[in-house]
């Protein structure tokens, strides 16, 4: 049936069409680890064995691609990604849904992610720009090549790390670990794969763009938070600390007391709306990160 591990993996990949790409990647790495280890063990006990002849028995024990795919589907059905279980346990009506966002871990996760994105954005950008400039300028010399390759490797590492962050905070399934490079190829081939893989460059682009996005997220968040908080704080500031709403140095404008409920309500509504915005942006960013950082199976 299958004459090599690759053939089995191809069949498994086909069988898992339509699965979440991260689950598929988990399944492929697991299968590859198992089948290769089993082959290796068989080879140790009888060195002259023929891999093509031993493989069917190993696969028989491991399970056909259909069986393996079914096993992952079964487990995946029972355990969903870290934060995804929280999606509407019961359908609530208008107002409840609007304020229900405070009970939604996805919104809080996204909020935290957007704040962190400011810091990671700066780090990614610095690393990406430094790495590429150093690599390009060293390209004149013979040792420029290894520097370039190390940098590209680090980009894949950062992509993986960012993937973990996105999965933990935004609840989007990302691969547990980088896909294996095909076995039994020379290191020159490996390097070629690293350089021509579009995800190396998409990850690089992601690192650069993250500075802009991170800054944008941070600024928008802080601004909206400041507006909301000031609305809520106006009555306290005026009544307890005698600080006016508008203070030009010569004129002081105090909000009349009938306005208190209005500004507090406006502040609360604005912050609740912000939480919805945050959730939406988190969702979009998760999808964008997945498209950029994860090797999609095709």
């Amino acid at each position, binding site marked *: 049936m299958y004459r090599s591990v690759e053939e089995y993996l191809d069949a498994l990949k086909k069988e898992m069409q339509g699965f979440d790409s991260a689950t598929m990647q*988990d*399944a492929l790495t*697991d299968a590859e680890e198992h089948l290769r280890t089993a082959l*290796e063990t068989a080879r140790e006990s009888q060195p002259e064995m023929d891999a093509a002849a031993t493989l069917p028995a190993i696969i028989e024990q491991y*399970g056909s691609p259909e069986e393996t795919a079914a096993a992952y589907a*079964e*487990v995946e059905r029972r355990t969903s990604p870290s934060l995804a279980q929280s999606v509407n346990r019961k359908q609530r009506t208008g107002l409840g849904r609007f304020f229900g966002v405070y009970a939604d871990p996805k919104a809080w996760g996204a909020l935290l992610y957007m704040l962190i994105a400011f810091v990671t954005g700066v780090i990614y950008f610095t690393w990406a720009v430094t790495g590429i400039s150093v690599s390009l300028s060293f390209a004149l010399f013979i040792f420029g090549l290894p520097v370039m390759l190390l940098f590209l490797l680090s980009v894949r590492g950062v992509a993986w790390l960012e993937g973990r962050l996105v999965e933990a905070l935004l609840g989007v399934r990302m691969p547990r670990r980088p896909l294996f490079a095909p076995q039994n190829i020379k290191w020159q081939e490996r390097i070629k794969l690293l350089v021509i893989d579009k995800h190396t460059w998409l990850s690089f682009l992601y690192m650069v763009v993250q500075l802009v996005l991170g800054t944008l997220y941070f600024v928008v968040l802080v601004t909206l938070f400041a507006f909301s908080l000031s609305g809520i704080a106006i009555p306290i500031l005026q009544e307890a600390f005698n600080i006016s709403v508008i203070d030009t140095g010569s004129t002081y404008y105090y909000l009349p007391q009938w306005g208190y409920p209005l500004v507090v309500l406006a502040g609360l509504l604005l912050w609740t709306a912000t939480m919805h915005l945050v959730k939406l942006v988190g969702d979009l960013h998760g999808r964008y990160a997945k498209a950029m950082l994860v090797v999609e199976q095709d």
Partner: protein
Amino acid sequence: MVDHNMPTKKFQKEMNSGTASLVMLSVLSQSEDPMYGYQIAKLLDDNRQDALAMKQGALYPVLRSLEKNGLLSSKVEPSVSGPPRRYYTITGDGRETLTLWTEIWSQMKSFVDSILEGESDV
């Protein structure tokens, strides 16, 4: 005597998926060193009887889901030859859960046994 008709296969499958997590936690709690998937599969193979033919490939998603629930932890280490291997270790949470599950299992076992042996007052 292994029957291979559909309901029997389905029954086997359900029994396997019901007990796989317990078995795997137990194997890892008895092992001094972290173990990788193939090792666990081999060990189960050596103890398995005909009726319990669970495919080795079905162990891996169970291991992953146990890890996701914090009952196992894992790390990937390169191997001398072949691809890197994922080594699993049981966590403190895992050990506590195992004690609970063992309790449930023995209750379940004696309950089913007592029904099968007709000792109940039905």
